[in-house]
């Protein structure tokens, strides 16, 4: 019985106008997105390579003095991800630059040139965007009149005049909607993969295909959420136009209202002190350090590394750096917590759940930033140790470590290839699965709750 119903539903959808128009749009958007990605990815890659080359040239200049290598801040800038065609994870809007030296990881920022500021903000045409904004919408268009539409056309009473269990009917409806939307998505992805393969910009290796497979599974789960909600809106009313309005309201809240009011909620629900307040406290503490520093703590003599006051200067500078670090790190922690709490708040929207699942699975976005942030802290300690080892072997250095200046440490030159350089480590699949589990559970619970509600209402639905 289930198979009969399922095939009948599939046939109905396949011949419907909504399928034909949606299919054309899906193919068009996937193709446009992939062609644009191929074109822009090459540009991004070239820009990044040029940037890296400039960084290497700058490092080569600094390598003439090892203390400069250690003290002058370097920037880690996130590279373009090949799998960003699947989901860009808003990386161009997230923190994507981290400043560090051998002594400290100073801070992070958003590179405002990673997007053209003259353009209105928008998502890239990644697969994830197409699924979350367009396929979620058409899933509702397929589902909103699944029950109420049949009731209006009086076919529902006819179906139940046979020995058809309501559960079977509901499940066949759900599965057919997920199948039809999933099919459109698959066609879109195949077209996109073909474009990527022809362009040669992205290596379609096992890892990429595994990520594609994972994305398809996640998106099927996501489509199921919307399909179940569409069915729910269909079983709570007798008229399809009311079901449609309920579905549209749900979509508006999930896709527009909840994600786009996050900054407001972040400030109201998870407030943190203002930056000027933190700055004021940090400055006061710095002034205290300077006031209490022994006389001569700011003296220097460029010609004599062993000038005794250089030790005082190094201590003072270290104290100042540690003071900044103490205030900044505490504030960064508050910022991270605020961001994470806001993200958790937006999990009310299935679209946010889907975005975060993709981010976790692809190892991009905020999780990528967090991983780099933590890894850079570990790297900085190794970098400092490397510098101290070189400095220890230099008899011309008094070994008074000054985090900002080269007055009292080794000024020997060093080969560029010997300088430790931070390399981004991509999260392993194991870690990604670990990241994704929370969001996966949230989505499964959402589906279960919605489906139970849908089943409850449908068992009481007047089919006449």
């Amino acid at each position, binding site marked *: 019985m289930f198979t009969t119903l399922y095939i009948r539903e599939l046939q109905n959808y396949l011949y419907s*106008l*909504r399928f034909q128009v*949606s299919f054309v*749009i899906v193919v068009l*958007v996937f193709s*446009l997105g992939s062609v*644009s990605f191929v*074109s*822009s990815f090459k*540009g991004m890659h070239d*820009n990044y390579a*040029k*940037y890296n080359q*400039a960084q290497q040239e700058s490092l080569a200049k600094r390598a003439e003095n090892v203390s400069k290598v250690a003290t002058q801040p370097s920037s880690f800038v996130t590279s373009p991800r090949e799998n960003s065609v699947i989901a860009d994870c808003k990386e161009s*809007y*997230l*923190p994507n630059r981290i400043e560090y030296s051998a002594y400290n990881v100073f801070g*992070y920022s*958003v*590179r405002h*040139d*990673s997007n*053209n*500021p*003259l*353009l*209105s*903000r*928008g998502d890239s*045409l990644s697969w994830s965007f197409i699924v979350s*904004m*367009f396929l979620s*919408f058409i899933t509702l*268009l397929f589902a909103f009149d699944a029950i109420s539409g049949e009731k209006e056309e009086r076919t529902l009473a006819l179906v139940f005049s046979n020995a058809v269990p309501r559960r079977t009917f509901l499940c066949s409806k759900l599965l057919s909607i997920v199948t039809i939307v999933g099919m459109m998505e698959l066609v879109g992805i195949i077209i996109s993969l073909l474009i990527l393969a022809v362009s040669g910009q992205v290596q379609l290796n096992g890892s990429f295909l595994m990520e594609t497979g994972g994305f398809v599974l996640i998106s099927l789960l996501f489509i199921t959420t919307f399909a179940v909600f569409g069915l729910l809106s269909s079983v709570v009313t007798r*008229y*399809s*136009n*009311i079901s449609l*309005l*309920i579905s*549209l*309201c749900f979509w*508006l809240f999930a*896709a*527009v*209202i909840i994600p*786009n*009011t*996050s*900054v*407001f909620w*972040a*400030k109201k629900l998870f407030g*943190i002190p*203002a*930056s000027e307040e933190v700055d004021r406290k940090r400055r006061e503490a710095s002034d205290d350090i300077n006031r209490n520093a022994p006389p001569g703590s700011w003296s220097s003599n460029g010609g004599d590394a062993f000038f005794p006051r250089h030790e005082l200067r190094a201590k003072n500078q270290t104290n100042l750096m540690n003071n900044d670090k103490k205030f900044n790190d505490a504030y960064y922690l508050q*910022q991270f917590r*605020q961001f994470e709490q*806001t993200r958790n708040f937006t999990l009310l929207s299935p679209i946010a759940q889907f975005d975060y699942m993709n981010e976790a699975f692809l190892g991009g*976005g905020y999780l990528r930033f967090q991983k780099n942030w933590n890894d850079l802290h570990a790297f900085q300690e190794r970098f400092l140790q490397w510098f101290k080892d070189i400095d220890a072997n230099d008899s011309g250095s008094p070994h008074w470590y000054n985090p900002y200046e080269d007055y009292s440490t080794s000024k020997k030159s060093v080969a560029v290839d010997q300088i430790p350089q931070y390399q981004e480590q991509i999260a392993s699949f194991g870690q990604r699965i670990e990241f994704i589990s929370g969001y996966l559970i949230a989505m499964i619970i959402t589906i279960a709750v919605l489906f139970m509600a849908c089943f409850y209402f449908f068992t009481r639905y007047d089919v006449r």
Partner: protein
Amino acid sequence: MIWLIAKKDFLLNLLSVRFIIGFVLCLLVIPFTIIVSVDNYENQVRVYKIEQAQADRELKESRVWSAVRPTIVQEPEPLSIFSTGIMTNVGNKVKIAFWEYPLFPSGHTITRDNPSLNAFFSIDFSKVIAILISLLALVFSYDAITREREDGTMKLTFTGQVSRISFLMGKLLGLLLILLPILLFCYLLACLIIVVNPGISFSASDWGGVALLFLTSVIYMMVFLLLGMFISSRVTHSSSSIIISLLCWIWFLFLMPNIATYLSQSISKAPLYDNVQAAMNNYDDTYYKEYGEEWPRAAQRVNMRGLSYNNCNGDGVEYLELAGGPRETPLFHQQMQIWSTPVMLNNADKKWALQRDYLDGLMRQQHLQQVIAWLSPSELFGQATDALCHTNANCFLKYMESLRNYRESLITYFKDHKLFESISYFTGQKLEDFPTRAELDAGDQDAHRRYERGNSEFPYLDTSGVPRYVPQPVALSAALGDALGRLCALLGLAIVLLVGTIVSFMKYDVR
């Protein structure tokens, strides 16, 4: 007859569930959006006040002319409550430097307290209106013709003396009567929230802008009403009409804007600003090299034995403030300053050529995006509202141009008053007050006292004569002129859809 049909439609829709749901949706979403926007605006005003006070303090407390580099803080635009435009993408303050031309402001208000929050997008009143009003217009108009046919009332209507044009006009009027109060209600609610908020004050020009926004919204609503009616006149079933209408809606509202932005960036390429800066650094490196070559010549001219300071602050680029030390130090710096000023200004011009190229690249992308976005009425509406609220790229670029002009006037002031050559450019101490080497070598106590002098001993400069940046308010007529093209396009689209609907309905099988 038109009025009768309109009245019937109005009453029917007024009692419908879609009206109640639509109205409740507006009632929930509009005040919330305005509250979010007002909160955001108040935060911007708070930041503006803090930064303006700091900029004023910095200028007032300058002791040397090399520190006189005014910071211009942009006052938040009150109409940004209605449409933020690109203002969330750019910062709010610019330090006028001679070393470089101002390109983009720094200090992003949203990311000030937490840069990560930049990842969350925001929505403003005009976007909510664009989404809700277009949706409601389509939901009300998709079955304007098909439903009458399905119910069999159309046949009945045309058995009488009703012309097809009258029928269509009646339908359109009825739909306008039902949607216009909702739109008006949204605007009145928004205005009420603004009026009762003591932290916001709108000028007459701002209220004029709000009135123009309302007018734009009415035209925009008409476009979607007519689109719904046009679709309804082309199909025979309401179920088909709603599906096509909603697919058009999502295409225009959510897909097209992103397609336009993404396509423009992939068609027209812009370099990474970091790479532009690397090229600019090459000019700076040349400057430093030449500076190093000039150094011994300047030292020779003032017979300097070796450069020594007692008290010196500086940023290594423009700002230098020194006090105490031997007299040859200020003399040497004066010589270097006379040499470096034209070189530095020339260097800034060379760097500006690179920056200009970069800016041109960004502007090309922006123009392309605007052209592609003309395929969507909601983008036309968005561009028109941004222009009316003075938050579009055009206003921003004009503002930056005015800042570059201000920089020129500041340089002219410095040149006219011979400040670059003056010793007060880098010290508050009189030249005669610096001890000579001979006085120091002779062990003169007074000379040693003068040698030990610090920067804080000297008074602040009188900067009252320094030209101030005066922001040019955007006149309502200028804003209207900026938005006029989009408004005409929207109006033209409405007319085309009206004609299309009439033509299509003339051939419609009413049976």
